[in-house]
């Protein structure tokens, strides 16, 4: 654990961590302001905390922008400074912003307007950013826990609702259980290599003879991450937690938590364990397959839209795992790009669900969506686009994302994964379309409750999601370029040899880009 020595001074270190710091500070400010504002009375928090948290997120995003121009941190840095992290931060901050926007109306409706909510949300985001950006297993563990503990609380946040408490408990108990596996894995890897730093671990592993400790450590890490990304068979908590949690939290959890964990998994596997793929690649492959197959099938029989979406987001973890299994620039880009789109559509979809479900989240049954398309065309239209994107239909971002994943799978010589991906997508069409058909093909009987009216924040958030999805579907160029060229410090041994960057400008940060003869020729052509 010797990290700071190679950073050019404390100021530089602070600059490199600016987004996290900004966000932490805003969380604390929110907490303080809330305390002072509310004083003794136990009423709802004022609106200032909302806007403070939004501003905090925006400031963090601005800080994140400054990271782009910073050069790469040294290989020993605890927190990486690479395109991967920057993009991950954007995804997380985006999820946070959307989570906040969608939470406003919800919290007011449910009487949960308490400042801690915002603070917890922001702190969870800090945890996520650390998780996805850290280059040291211990720091990753800390980020993981910071995120998790905050989210446990958020899950159980609705004290009036037993479902919320139950979800919190299940999530917490299994989460803690999984954390133990994770840290055990860290311990074993530490024992095997003598370091917890990813890059150094990689170099140790590539020179030494990895043994049982490494293998066990890798396996345990996979289990820990498997829980966080809700990979089958470690997913069982997810549908329950997603369903029980307050709906905006569900969206936030399904996107932010998954994004951070998935990206951290990617970094750990391909940076530190890249040279020992034999220990984990088969496992990841199977995890991906199971995670695509099982939740999609189970979602077929769900009649509750929220729970159906919960299963759907578990299934999306499977799609993302395809990107992880593919690895390389293509897999990395695919995972990043898909996460961007996935965040937009999942958060958006859950948000629409809570509007339809009404107070107490009571009416999220499929039947409650009957005729929504004609009663609330905008709301239904938005949900329709989210669903189409989740299904992976052009011209939405979901389609481009799926194509990206397919290319990654094919490019890494895993056509089987690609085929399973599309076949499970086909299964998914059925349940997504079922919602669409309820919304448009059936008429609402008189006793279907009217959905809530929506506030400005919600509408803004929804427009943001829809616009984002369509932009990602119609002009995905910039996003594809960014994702495709996002470097990953210390990534080596790309299993993918198709380069997307042949036409994309920007630095390649791959430590050892394998030079393919044809690729060299292609570069020469340009």
């Amino acid at each position, binding site marked *: 654990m010797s990290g700071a020595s190679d950073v050019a001074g404390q100021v530089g270190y602070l600059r490199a961590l600016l987004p996290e710091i900004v966000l932490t500070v805003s969380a604390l400010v929110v907490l303080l302001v809330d305390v002072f504002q509310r004083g003794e009375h136990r009423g709802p928090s004022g609106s200032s905390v909302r806007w403070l948290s939004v501003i905090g997120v925006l400031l963090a995003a601005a800080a994140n922008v400054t990271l782009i121009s910073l050069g790469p941190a040294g290989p020993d840095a605890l927190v990486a400074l690479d395109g991967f992290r920057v993009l991950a931060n954007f995804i997380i901050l985006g999820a946070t912003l959307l989570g906040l926007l969608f939470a406003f109306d919800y919290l007011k409706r449910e009487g949960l307007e308490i400042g801690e909510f915002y603070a917890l949300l922001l702190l969870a985001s800090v945890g996520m950013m650390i998780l996805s950006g850290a280059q040291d297993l211990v720091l990753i563990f800390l980020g993981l826990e910071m995120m998790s503990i905050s989210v446990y609380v958020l899950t159980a946040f609705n004290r009036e609702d037993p479902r919320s408490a139950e979800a919190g*408990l*299940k999530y917490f*108990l*299994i989460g803690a*259980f*999984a954390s133990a*596996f994770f840290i055990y894995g860290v311990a074993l890897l530490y024992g095997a290599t003598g370091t917890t730093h990813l890059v150094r671990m990689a170099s140790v592993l590539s020179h030494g003879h990895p043994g*049982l400790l490494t*293998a*066990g450590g*890798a*396996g*345990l890490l*996979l*289990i820990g991450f*498997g*829980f966080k990304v809700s990979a*089958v*068979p*470690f997913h*069982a*908590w997810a*549908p*329950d937690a997603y369903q029980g949690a307050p709906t905006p939290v569900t969206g936030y959890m399904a996107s932010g938590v998954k994004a951070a964990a998935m990206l951290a998994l990617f970094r750990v596997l391909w940076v530190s364990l890249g040279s020992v793929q034999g*220990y*984990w690649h*088969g*496992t990841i492959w199977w995890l991906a397959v199971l995670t695509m197959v*099982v939740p999609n*099938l*189970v*979602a*077929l*029989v*769900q009649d509750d839209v929220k729970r159906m979406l919960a299963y759907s987001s578990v299934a999306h973890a499977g799609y993302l795992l395809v990107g992880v299994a593919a690895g390389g620039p293509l897999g990395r880009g695919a995972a990043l790009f898909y996460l961007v789109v996935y965040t937009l559509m999942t958060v958006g979809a859950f948000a629409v669900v809570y509007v339809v479900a009404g107070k107490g989240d009571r009416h999220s049954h499929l039947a409650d969506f009957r005729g929504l398309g004609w009663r609330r065309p905008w709301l239904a239209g938005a949900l329709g686009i989210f669903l189409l994107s989740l299904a992976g239909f052009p011209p939405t971002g979901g389609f481009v994302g799926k194509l990206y994943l397919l290319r990654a799978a094919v490019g890494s010589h895993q056509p089987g994964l690609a085929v399973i991906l599309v076949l499970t997508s086909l*299964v998914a069409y*059925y349940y997504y379309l079922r919602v669409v058909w309820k919304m448009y093909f059936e008429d609402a009987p008189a006793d279907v409750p009217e959905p809530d009216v929506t506030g400005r924040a919600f509408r803004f958030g929804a427009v943001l999601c829809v616009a984002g999805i369509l932009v990602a579907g119609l002009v995905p160029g910039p996003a594809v370029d960014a994702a495709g060229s996002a470097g990953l410090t210390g990534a080596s041994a790309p299993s993918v040899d198709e380069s997307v960057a042949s036409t994309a400008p920007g630095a390649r940060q791959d430590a050892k880009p394998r030079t393919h003869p044809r690729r060299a020729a292609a570069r020469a052509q340009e």
Partner: protein
Amino acid sequence: MYHPILPALVLALPLAGAIINGVGAFLWREDHRVARWVGPLAVGASFVVVAINFFAMKASGTTAASVVSLWTWIAAGGLHVGVDLQFDRLSMVMMLIVTGVSTLIHVYSIGYMRGDPGFNRFFAYLNLFVFFMLVLVTAASFPLMFVGWEGVGLCSYLLIGFWYENEAYSNAGKKAFIVNRIGDFGFLVAMFIIFGIFGSLDFSQVLPAATGHLRYGDVWATLITLFLFLACMGKSAQIPLYVWLPDAMAGPTPVSALIHAATMVTAGVYLVARTSVLFALAPISQAVVATVGAGTALFAATIATQQWDIKKVLAYSTISQLGYMFLAVGVGAFTAGIFHLMTHAFFKALLFLGAGAVIHSVEHAWHEAGRHGGDPNDMRNHGDLRRWMPVTWITMWSATLAISGVFPFAGFFSKDEVIWKSGVLGYPLLWGVALVAAFLTAGYMARLMALTFHGGENRTGEEARGHLHGAPLAMAVPLVVLGVLSLVGGWIQIPEALPLPHVSALEGWLDPVFEPAHHVMAMHGGAAATAAPLGGGELTWGLISTVVALAVVVWIFLAVVRRRYRPAAESPEPTGLSLVLYRKWYVDELYDRLIVRPLMALWRGCWKIVDDGLIDGTVNGLASGARAVGWVGSQLQSGRLGAYVLLFMVGVLVILGTVAF
């Protein structure tokens, strides 16, 4: 040098008539004046143009075909088919027959269809038919001929079901079309093979090249001609595809006369004649054609002897006569076939028109008398009609004697020629069959005449009898013209053997057309015999047949006239062989049991079992299977933490297990 004069006009006139009348069927539905003039005039004018062309061609003495290209029809890949009309000696004969007989029948129809609400529509169809028939006979290529081929079939369909509100009539039309389609399938396949071998479908490319591409007895020649003959079986109602023609009598009688006797049904004969060189190269096919022809001639004749419906008798008679024509072209006597085609057009059209006059009269009488029900076609409801319908009576006798082959009527010359040729060209058995059929023909025709016009007792009914009337002028004129033609029509071709001036106008005219075929046959088949199979020359057998025919006519006539018949409603069902023949050898029933019903069952099975059961079952089964698996999966998600931890641990053990080992 001969150039076709206004060739397109020959076709355009009937087409224009069809269009005008077709428009009239909508715009001036109640007003029949336009159709009355336009319909016959369009065809008549066409006849005039044809006649002018005929004389021009005759004057020029040319033996070659003149091809008029109108426009390119289908051009793709190596296939090039133009809308090309071919004017040669054969098509000229056919055009003359078609336009000539058509004109007469159009005139007749003015009278027959008077007052029918579908008058305009009728003439539209009829004109359209003439147009397609002319396309058929003038086409310079197989595909264009096929246009006419199917076009006349369409018109036949429309006209059979002309009174479409009668379900039986509609059914008859449908049956005709579908059975004809079986034949058309043969035509198509023949074209495929021809194109495959010759790379072209133009007569001018295929027929002259035939001997170059195909050897004598070549399997491809056999296949081509057999498939072509399949087409002929359909269109010309030969065994086994003849079944539609009797039903086709549902159409108005002029239709039966024009389409189902004089012109369309002879298209098959024309086709064989047109492709004579191909048939000449395929002796097996020739034998098949001749055998089927002779068989049909006999088979249909037996049925005709026991029918009560006057039109059915004529229908089977037509089938039988068509059999003769195929016998002729089958044995290689192409000219004889065309000759019989021509004379048959005269006398059979006349017979139908006469029958139509009878039906028309009886129907009107019943209508006037307020009688409904009863079949005006049934000869048991006629009797002694000569008293009311002398013109019809006399002209029909002319036709009867012609078809029976009594000297000097037209049929004697043509039929005798056919029978003689089949005897001397090496088909002794068929010769015998043809002779027997000829006597049967004389028999059933005599029966028809006796039942309808004679017997001294009229069975139309007391009240109706007073309303019976002779054919009106429009109907009478064609009858007379055809009656004359039935007499003299055969004189253009008088065999040398007879002690008469030798005339071979038709043979001389057509010989150049059939020259290649004759050449092939002469090279491979050897010379024709000079005596009939049982010995005796042409003169002997001509005498024998005309005497026997006459004897049969007289015998049957007297036998029938002496018997007393009751009106149809009061008559007993026939029994024994009579019943079998009356029921047409039960062929329709047989087809129904053996083909129609099994096919329908198969089709239902395809729908219910394969489509709904097998395929949809699989698809829906997959869907339900997926849902079932999903349900099982959802049951694992029991909500209990213990179960979740257990699942978790299973994953842990599997992963650690695989990692460790």
